[in-house]
């Protein structure tokens, strides 16, 4: 075991692969210090990804190149290297995912605009969202393996993962609440997040050196996914409400879920997402205090984060306390989601400026 390298006591790993793993897991001096504190789960996760990645990516002949580049990068820039990822497989998956999401959005639009109550387009939309989510998840796994980056690190993957989680949550919840038509908002949002993630380079930067950060990221990812759904339900509610207030019974509104169903779904998503957001905020604050960074983007990010929390807290409280349902709750949800979105955009912008 050389300095800064970890020898893996994994007998079952082939010697050749083991050698590559040993090269790849260059934790660094600082990492090594914190590494001991790292939760075993995170380490296992990373290990699993690396093993799988090494095995499957050998055929791409890129392992050595990526490793070299990474090692060089880490020497030059301790906070991480940015890699533009363009292998044919990853690119194909990316475009295919985007096309599937777009097709899903189109199917839902056709359903809403159609005259007849066509179940076919609605079902097609749901299936396409499902297919898109599977492709998207594959894309994330493959590219994270090639880059050798844990998929919850960095804004590039975070945005992607949120969109997959949102689609998955939609697929699970749509049957329970019968809100299939809400997919008309979920699908374009998923597409937006996917495209947005491509704007940011994958970074191996802020590594998961403590247990706080993965918790922070995971809580926020799941919370964000639920807020995507709450936002979608809120928008659908406002559209349906407007239609009814205009006394337009036959239009788009007739193919959206009932108002009350949308209102309750939105509330349920907020209620589920809020504790996650709270955990995210607390762990974020903890992490920030440890890192002691005071850049403008960090401050703005925390401010918007607190504002998001306050808005969602307000929406939930006022609903319970003053009976603020329907339109007011929908506007509050949309505003809260907008703030949460701003936080993500700040991450995105930062990933540019640092690069």
């Amino acid at each position, binding site marked *: 075991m050389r300095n800064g390298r970890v020898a893996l006591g994994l007998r079952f790993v082939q010697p050749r692969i083991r050698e590559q793993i040993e090269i790849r897991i260059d934790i660094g001096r600082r990492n090594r210090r914190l590494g001991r504190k790292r939760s075993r789960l995170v380490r296992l996760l990373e290990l699993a990804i690396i093993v799988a990645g090494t095995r499957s990516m050998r055929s791409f002949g890129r392992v050595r190149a990526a490793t070299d580049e990474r090692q060089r990068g880490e020497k030059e820039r301790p906070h991480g290297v940015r890699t533009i990822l363009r292998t044919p497989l990853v690119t194909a998956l990316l475009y295919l995912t985007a096309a599937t999401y777009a097709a899903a959005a189109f199917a839902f639009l056709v359903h809403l605009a159609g*005259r*007849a*109550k066509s179940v076919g387009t609605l079902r097609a939309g749901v299936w396409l969202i499902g297919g898109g989510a599977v492709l998207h998840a594959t894309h994330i796994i493959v590219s994270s393996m090639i880059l050798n980056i844990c998929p919850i690190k960095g804004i590039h993957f975070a945005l992607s993962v949120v969109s997959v989680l949102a689609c998955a949550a939609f697929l699970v919840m749509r049957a329970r609440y*019968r809100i299939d038509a809400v997919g008309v908002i979920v699908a374009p949002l998923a597409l937006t997040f996917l495209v947005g993630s491509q704007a940011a380079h994958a970074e191996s930067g802020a590594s998961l050196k403590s247990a706080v950060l993965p918790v922070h990221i995971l809580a926020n990812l799941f919370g964000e996914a639920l807020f995507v759904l709450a936002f979608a339900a809120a928008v659908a509610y406002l559209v*349906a409400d407007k239609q*009814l*207030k205009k*006394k337009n*019974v*036959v239009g788009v*509104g*007739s193919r959206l*879920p*009932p*108002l*009350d*169903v949308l*209102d309750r779904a939105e509330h349920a998503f907020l209620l589920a997402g809020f504790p996650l957001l709270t955990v995210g905020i607390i762990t974020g604050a903890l992490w920030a205090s440890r890192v002691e960074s005071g850049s403008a983007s960090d401050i703005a990010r925390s401010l918007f984060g607190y504002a998001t929390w306050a808005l969602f807290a307000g929406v939930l409280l006022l*609903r319970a306390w*003053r*009976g*603020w*349902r*329907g*339109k*007011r709750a929908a506007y509050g949800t949309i505003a809260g989601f907008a703030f949460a979105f701003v936080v993500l955009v700040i991450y995105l912008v930062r990933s540019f400026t640092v690069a």
Partner: protein
Amino acid sequence: MIVVVGLSFRTAPVEVRERFASDGTALEQVLARLASREELDEVMFLSTCNRVEVMARPKGNTDADRARALKAIREVLADHGKIGTPDLEPVLYEKEAEEAVRHVFRVTASLDSMVLGEPQILGQVKGAYDAAVAAGSLRSFLGRAVHRAFSVAKRVRTETALGAGTVSISSVAVELSRRVFGELDERTVLLLGAGEMAEAAARSIGKTAKEIRVCNRSMERAATLAQRFGGAASPLTDLETELCVADVVVASTGSPSFVVTRDLVKRVMKRRRGRALLFVDIAVPRNVEPNVHTIDNVYVFDIDDLQQQVALGLEARKAEVTSAEKIVEHEVGQFLVWARGLDVQPAIVALRAKTKGTLVAELERTLQGRLKHLPEGDRAALLQMVESATNKLLHAPTTRLRRAAGDGDAQELAAVIKELFELPTLEATDDSEETEPPPLQ
């Protein structure tokens, strides 16, 4: 082929139609009387409030047979309506062959209904079909035609929007409640006013609701109506409390001024903690102040709004007629291909019988003469050879005839074949004469 004789709201005024109104036993009697007529081979009797129709297949294929069948049906109908034939004839329509098939398909698909696309007619035709099957008056031909009509109706319903939208006040009210609350089985409907309109509304909207409550100026009438729907009654003074409980309010009081005011609803909404509230105001003058609609989570629809939706719904259905008719036309074509195929069936059967008969007879003679030394196995092989020779020889003429039948010019070909091969004249009946009509899904 089939014939249809009947009258409908298009041809006969209600004074005539009501003479044909009848209960179940009367229907069975008419059907039995029709089935017992010599002139009719298959028959089905359809009676709804908008139409009375006999669909039948005459015995025999000639024009004279058809005329006799039509006359028989007219007689039975005149007897059933207790109306003289001269009075009946002007309101009757008679359709034959292709036209009759198209008519049956259009009626079943609700293209000929008073309210376009209404779903009841399909059930009524199914009822008539079941009755005819039970009476044993349906066999494969008419049975198949009606059966086809069911799948035509199903196609029209799923492939067009002919049955979509809302085309009556009560269905609009139900649709509105669904739009706000989804399923109504957890919801309370409040009838404000206890008149006939309230009762009619309760029957449609309250069918699926959890509870129906009645609030009326006169407590007595409220109680009577509430009892009928198993709900609670209350006087008008309790309106505010009632509004806090209800989800859908159907207002139909005769009050000259607004019963439900904006201030009242604002108070109520506070007590309801913002839960949505829907007012369906079918009263004239209106019971609910119009600006109640501007309160958050409160929706008010008055009689004009509902009427407008009905008009829109009907218009939307009319726009679907063309595509529905296209489906009907296509299916009529398909059915005729099948039916005409039956026409050439006797010629095919006869040709086959003659060819095979001749060959087998010749073979038998040779086997008894020159080839009588052949063992049993060889004889069987020769017989087998004759069989496959017949099949090969007749394959082309059979398929050509069937194809010609599909195009509608098989009669001539069949006649030529009969002439050339000196085939015996056979009764033109289908080979599945004795089979049961297809079962209903």
